[in-house]
């Protein structure tokens, strides 16, 4: 595949070319690999670029960019109240999580405060979750279970307001939006520690 000229040039300038990267670096890298007996290692050492893939458009990114960070990054416009949240919850969530979020049959969303250090811990949004923003991220992406990514921002903010109120974290008059949600301090915010393993003595 490599002409003798290419190979000659390659040997003298291979380090420069390989480090520079670019399409040319790739071709030379492959030539060198052939030259030294078919090993592919050298081709893989080079920094890029293979010229594969294409630039993503703003619209393509926005369509999938649904995550919400603790800083509030990613929260959309919109707002929600506890009162409205109760209505949306009754209609779209209660069947699985119970009328007040405690009964199930699926994961309880309310209660469990003070149980984490007991023999029967109840891990819920209220007792366990460290960040309120995770509620936006998760409810929009994954709930309701049978129709994920179907809720409007106002519905999600309202559901969060209701869930936080039922868990005793915000007052009944709370309004949730892109500014107020990241400011909510979750009861178990400081409850998480980094992994200290190996932790079990021999």
């Amino acid at each position, binding site marked *: 595949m490599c002409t003798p000229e290419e190979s000659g040039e390659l040997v003298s300038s291979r380090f420069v070319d390989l480090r520079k990267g670019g399409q040319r670096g790739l071709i030379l890298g492959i030539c060198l690999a052939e030259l030294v007996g078919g090993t*592919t290692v050298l*081709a*893989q050492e080079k*920094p*890029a*670029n*293979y010229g*594969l*893939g*294409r*630039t*993503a458009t703003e619209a*393509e*990114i926005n369509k*999938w*960019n*649904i*995550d919400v*960070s*603790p800083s509030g990054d990613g929260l959309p416009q919109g707002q929600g109240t506890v009162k409205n949240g109760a209505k949306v919850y009754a209609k779209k969530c209660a069947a699985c999580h119970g009328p007040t979020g405690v009964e199930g049959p699926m994961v309880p969303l309310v209660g469990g405060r003070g149980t*984490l*250090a007991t*023999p029967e*811990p109840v*891990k819920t*949004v209220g007792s*366990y*979750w*460290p*960040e309120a*923003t*995770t509620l936006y*991220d*998760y409810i929009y*992406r*994954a709930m309701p*279970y049978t129709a*994920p*990514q179907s809720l409007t921002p106002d519905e999600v903010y309202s559901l969060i307001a209701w869930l936080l109120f039922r868990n005793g974290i915000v007052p009944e008059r709370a309004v949730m939006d892109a500014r107020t949600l990241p400011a909510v301090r979750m009861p178990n915010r400081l*409850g*998480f*520690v*980094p*992994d*200290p*393993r*190996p*932790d*079990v*003595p*021999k």
Partner: protein
Amino acid sequence: MKHSAKGMKTTGGRSLSRRRFLTAAVSVTGLAAAQALFRPLRAQARAVPEDPTRVPGAPPSPYGQRSEFEQATRLAGTSHSLTPLQDLHGIVTPSALHFERHHNGVPVIDPARHRLLIHGLVERPMIFTMDDLKRFPSVSRLAFIECSGNSAREWRAPGGQTVQETHGLMSTSEWTGVALAMVLREVGVKPDAAWMLAEGSDAAAMTRSIPLGPAMEDALLCYAQNGEPLRPEQGYPLRLLLPGWEGNTCIKWLRRLKLGTAPFMTREETSHYTDLMPDGTARQFTMVMEAKSVITHPSGGQQLRPGFVEVRGLAWSGNGRVTVVEVSTDGGRTWQPARLHDLVLPECPTRFTFPWRWEGQEAVLQSRCTDETGYVQPTRQALITVRGLNSVYHYNAIQSWKVARDGRVSNVHA
């Protein structure tokens, strides 16, 4: 593979070679079970000739099936299924028996329409087709994937009856794909990027935050499993593989990677996959699956017959290679080295065997492994002394199988 009684006779004249050990052990345990299965099956299956050398066999087929006499299956719950470790041989899990865990079902994805978007703290946000990804230099390696919830029922009491129930959320494949580092170089990682959000295109849009440093070392974007495209349950057409890390981080049906400065605090790294300690704090980002081993034969639910028994099992570590496996037949009082079989690879189960005679005595079988970091698999007591009973995930204690005088094998806490 079943060895016939005739097969045994042909080795009968020789000394008790390893080959004969194997033949005998398989016959004793496998034959009775297999015979029980054959009877009901024969009625519906193709006619089974008395002498297969006297009738022409079946023609070639486009996609092979296992023998109609083989029945090993995954044990399915609502959102997971367990690998039948007790029925398998060797280190690779047949793709059809790889455990499953999903949070809202297995999606149907047309590979021609599937895209991987990489954006966030990158020089140039990019989109890759499956065809693009397959054109990059490729890497193949064997690796286990273990759900961090594997053996979760064993914290408090002996929970599972069989090794499928206690350890079946661990499976092994040869994975092929492109190094994540190579694709990220193509995109250009900005200097302040430290974490990566990986997102699936299933109905859970599963997401995890992955620290970029370790991911750049050995993470793969995989499109193949055991030589063929990924199974739908394993993320077809594209999944992340972080060798040795908890299964949930190996995002299946991967469609998006977003680079950022900090973890994104998704539900799957806060509400779930965090280990609750006795003091009420919880450990977060407990990624590596520490060294673990289990005896798959004899194991819970099996029936021993007196005589030679080959003890067989698997040992693995998310921190590299397994260096030593020991077996105890007296509940951990005394230990003897087991034989490790090739291949011994990092972040990949190693098969071990130990020749034993069972003559009707009560016994408690255990295996204990050590990995190349010097880490020794802990006893359950040592583990719960540190972690208590509420952590749910990352249970890797020594497993005990009790052999009763009648040969019944059951799960116990020794």
